């Protein structure tokens, strides 16, 4: 029974996904069905289940651990899912996306992400990775008639498959060295070999690192990110830029800080270089982008870099900081993509910087919300992003990685420049009357409002979430 309890949140999400498919199958042509509402109910149920499991540390089938860490990430993922569904409400109709498939794939992806965050066996992590990846690949190309979407999906799929192979090889080599894929056993075996490590361990660590780096879009495995982000429907971009990253980081942390923790001095330097490269490339290349979605793609690369800084400085503070950062980043980034999606039309789906000129004068609410999310991403107080950055940098400085913190903070100044480019065109240039910007739908507006309130709340009173994040890492590692 405890086994089932431990997987209850993802089970609920999966069942809801199945239900949406069934509902779609029975939908008569032209009938409108509140399929999104179904998804909201399922996710709310999963949230309740996750809250009930808090502090219970339930184990499921020996390969899933519903510890606070997993539950924290799951709750963040559920939040991402809820906001995504709210933002989708209007967009799905406007773009004529197939409702049933859309929501089902989103929910399957969330279930996969939740599994990824709670799995304690490398093979199950791989399973979860594939569940979420396949769903997201399909979501990327869900506008079947759209060439850009198809190209993005194809690129994403090919490179993703490639990285999955790396990941799988990593698992194979780990098994070869340790005789197990269970994280705790891997850790025990490796701990005994620390002094004379089997060279194959290096290979295993390296290959797994590549796999994770791809999923979190760290340099040099970031190439797919801008294209996939630009080509995918905007709501989907928001979803994958936050959900996939959160899930991948959760597994990244769990694998590297439990199974390979004994080898930490060896891999930490590698991650440090990746973090440096990711932050610098993400921000520098972001400066020259003229498409807002591409720009935010590079911003998400840079944010992956900051998160990696947290992984490098993985003291208790650092681990909690990563969790906190994932939450604040998710809210702000989703919000930003939500606004882009809401003000786009079928004719202008891709969020050119040009589309934002004078937005403040035509749609002041949309512009203000966008500004809040962008400034949070840029890390201005009193918004959540500032607290997230502070927390990571505090951890880095406390662990003696001051140099890394300095690079991180200087790149965040460069990033300010490109976030402000959007603010400049929204607020400081006058609107061109070429097109009518649509109003934001009510459901979407409510979602954006929630995201904005959370952004302010976590920026002013972060203590509760900081404490929760600190609690969630206590049960593991």
């Amino acid at each position: 029974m405890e086994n089932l309890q431990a997987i209850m949140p993802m089970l609920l999400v999966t069942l809801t996904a199945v239900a949406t498919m069934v509902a779609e199958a029975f939908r008569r042509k032209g009938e409108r069905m509140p399929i999104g509402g179904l998804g909201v109910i399922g996710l709310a149920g999963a949230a309740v289940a996750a809250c009930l499991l808090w502090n219970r540390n339930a184990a499921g089938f020996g390969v899933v651990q519903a510890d606070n860490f997993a539950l924290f990430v799951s709750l963040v993922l559920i939040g991402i899912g809820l906001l995504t569904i709210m933002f989708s409400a209007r967009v799905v109709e406007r773009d004529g996306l197939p409702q049933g498939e859309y929501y089902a794939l989103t929910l399957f992806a969330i279930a996969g992400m939740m599994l990824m965050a709670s799995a304690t066996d490398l093979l199950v992590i791989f399973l979860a990775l594939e569940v979420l990846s396949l769903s997201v690949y399909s979501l990327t190309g869900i506008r079947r008639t759209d060439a850009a979407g198809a190209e993005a999906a194809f690129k994403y799929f090919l490179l993703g498959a490639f990285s999955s192979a790396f990941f799988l090889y990593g698992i194979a080599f780990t098994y070869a060295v340790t005789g197990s894929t269970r994280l705790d056993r891997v850790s025990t075996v490796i701990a005994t070999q620390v002094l004379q490590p089997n060279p194959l361990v290096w290979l295993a660590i390296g290959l797994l690192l590549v796999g994770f780096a791809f999923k979190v879009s760290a340099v040099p495995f970031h190439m797919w990110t801008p294209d996939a982000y630009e080509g995918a429907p905007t709501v989907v971009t928001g979803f994958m830029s936050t959900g996939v990253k959160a899930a991948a980081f959760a597994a990244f942390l769990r694998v590297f800080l439990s199974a390979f923790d004994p080898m930490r001095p060896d891999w930490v330097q590698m991650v440090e270089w990746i973090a440096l490269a990711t932050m610098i490339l993400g921000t520098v290349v972001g400066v020259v982008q003229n498409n807002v979605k591409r720009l935010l793609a590079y911003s998400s690369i840079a944010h992956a870099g900051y998160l990696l800084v947290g992984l490098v400085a993985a003291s208790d503070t650092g681990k909690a900081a990563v969790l906190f950062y994932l939450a604040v980043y998710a809210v702000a980034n989703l919000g930003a993509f939500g606004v882009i999606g809401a003000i786009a039309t079928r004719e202008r789906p891709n969020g050119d910087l040009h589309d934002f000129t004078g937005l403040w004068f035509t749609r002041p609410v949309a512009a203000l919300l966008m500004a809040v999310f962008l400034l949070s991403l840029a890390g201005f107080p009193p918004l959540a992003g500032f607290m997230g950055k502070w927390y990571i940098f505090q951890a880095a400085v406390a662990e003696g990685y001051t140099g890394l913190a300095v690079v991180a903070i200087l790149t965040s100044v460069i990033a300010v420049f490109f976030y402000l480019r959007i603010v400049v065109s929204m607020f400081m240039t006058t609107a061109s009357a070429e097109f009518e910007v649509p109003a934001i739908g009510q459901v979407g507006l409510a979602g954006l409002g929630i995201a904005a309130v959370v952004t302010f709340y976590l920026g002013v009173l972060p203590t509760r979430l900081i404490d929760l994040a600190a609690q969630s890492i206590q049960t593991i590692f």
Partner: protein
Amino acid sequence: MPLLTFTIFLPLAGALLVGLVPNRDGANDALVRRLALGVSLAAFLVSLALWRGFDPLGADYQFVEQAAWIPAFGIEYHLGIDGISLLLIVLTTFLTPLALLSSWGSVKKKVKAFSVCLLLLETAMIGVFAAIDLFLFYVFWDAMLIPMYLLIGVWGYDRRIYAAVKFILYTMAGSVLMLIAILTLSVLHYQQFGAYSFDLARLLQLSIPPASQALLFGAFTLAFAIKVPLFPLHTWLPDAHVEAPTAGSVLLAGVLLKMGTYGLVRFAFPLFPEAAHQYAPLLAWLAVIGIIYGALVAMVQPDLKKLVAYSSVSHLGFVVLGICAMNVNGVQGATFQMLAHGVSTGGLFLLVGMLSDRRHTRLIAEFGGLKQVMPMLVRVFFLITLASVALPGTNGFVGEFLILLGTYRWDWRLGTAAASGVILSVVYMLWMFQRVNYGPVTNPKNEGLPDLTPREWGAILPIAAMAVLMGVLPNIFLSPMEPAVRRVVQRVERGQVYTAQVEGAAPAPTASSSTPLAGAQPRVE
């Protein structure tokens, strides 16, 4: 009622209130303007209440409020003011209503957003001066950037976007390193006392090895020097000033620049006294270069606003010089000069704004003979010009005199060089004044310009009165700040003692810092 919190967040509450007024396409502009002005006046009255309740003899922080904010890291909502911060808060609340009033004629679009930005800015500015927890201080310090950025970028002149972006990037680049330095301090506190803390009083107890002191002092000073701005980091200032709307310029020159010098007095020098002693001469020479360079560049400016902007570089150089002297005269003079410069430069920007509202140009060559057209405006202009060139009996004199006194007591070469700046300031200000106001009216467009309107009187009269009051009765302002100034000077003198010991190759005062000291010795002859 916690009075300090009330002062800080009154403008914020007012901004939210103003935000509720429907203002689509300019509806209710008048209501919005009055409401914002009322809020800022209320804040001014509250800050006067602070002054009334302030004990001028108390050396310690007053109106202290302390509450846990992020307890896991010892971050507190910790406020308190001494004489220096009190006066700067009053300066802030004094200038904000005038800035709002000055915009009534010139800001026509998005009046509500403009008022909201200005009030948010006021909250952040007061917060900067009232926070004595470094994290809280940084939050206010950074929170101030966005409203100012919008003020310049949305309501500014032609090259506003360039100026706004330059302003924010420059300031950010400096201040983020300060954030790292602040975090390092908290980590040092953790290492030495077993708990994180961002509290200024606690961080003052740290013993910091000289090598890291130099780095940390550098990070703090860079942030503050950019804000001041100290030569050669001043290049953002002319652009920001010229492109900002009048209200933005007034607050930028009047208050924002003071945050830099305030930061030096409050944080950089007391936290790192040894490093401060080592690098004070360098800063002082940069300040003197700034004084002379700013004055020379101001002399050749064709644009009134740019001239006033460069004069700020020059005047703020005096403030930094006084701080670097680190004796009671110097620091007191510097603090007084912060207030005086806020008042008189605020006044100059208001006047330039009035001219620019009338003629839509700020070029000196476009004017001439205004005395015959607008006698009252020119009289006030004259008074404030004199205040700016530090005529005895005006506010500028007291500050510069004390600063020079303090500087001579420290190093006569610096004093002499700086004194030449005083003469130069007379040259560029009076020459400008002469070209704008005297002589015949050569440009027909200047004929028949209206004199000061009652609203403009309302904005400029308090400044003129304050310029005279501060010059005639400086003690009203000097006495409340004196205990605070003495405390800062005493604190930094510890660094002097320490440096003297190093120079005499005496054994280190404490065992803990003996190792880094040995590394420092080769530098000493």
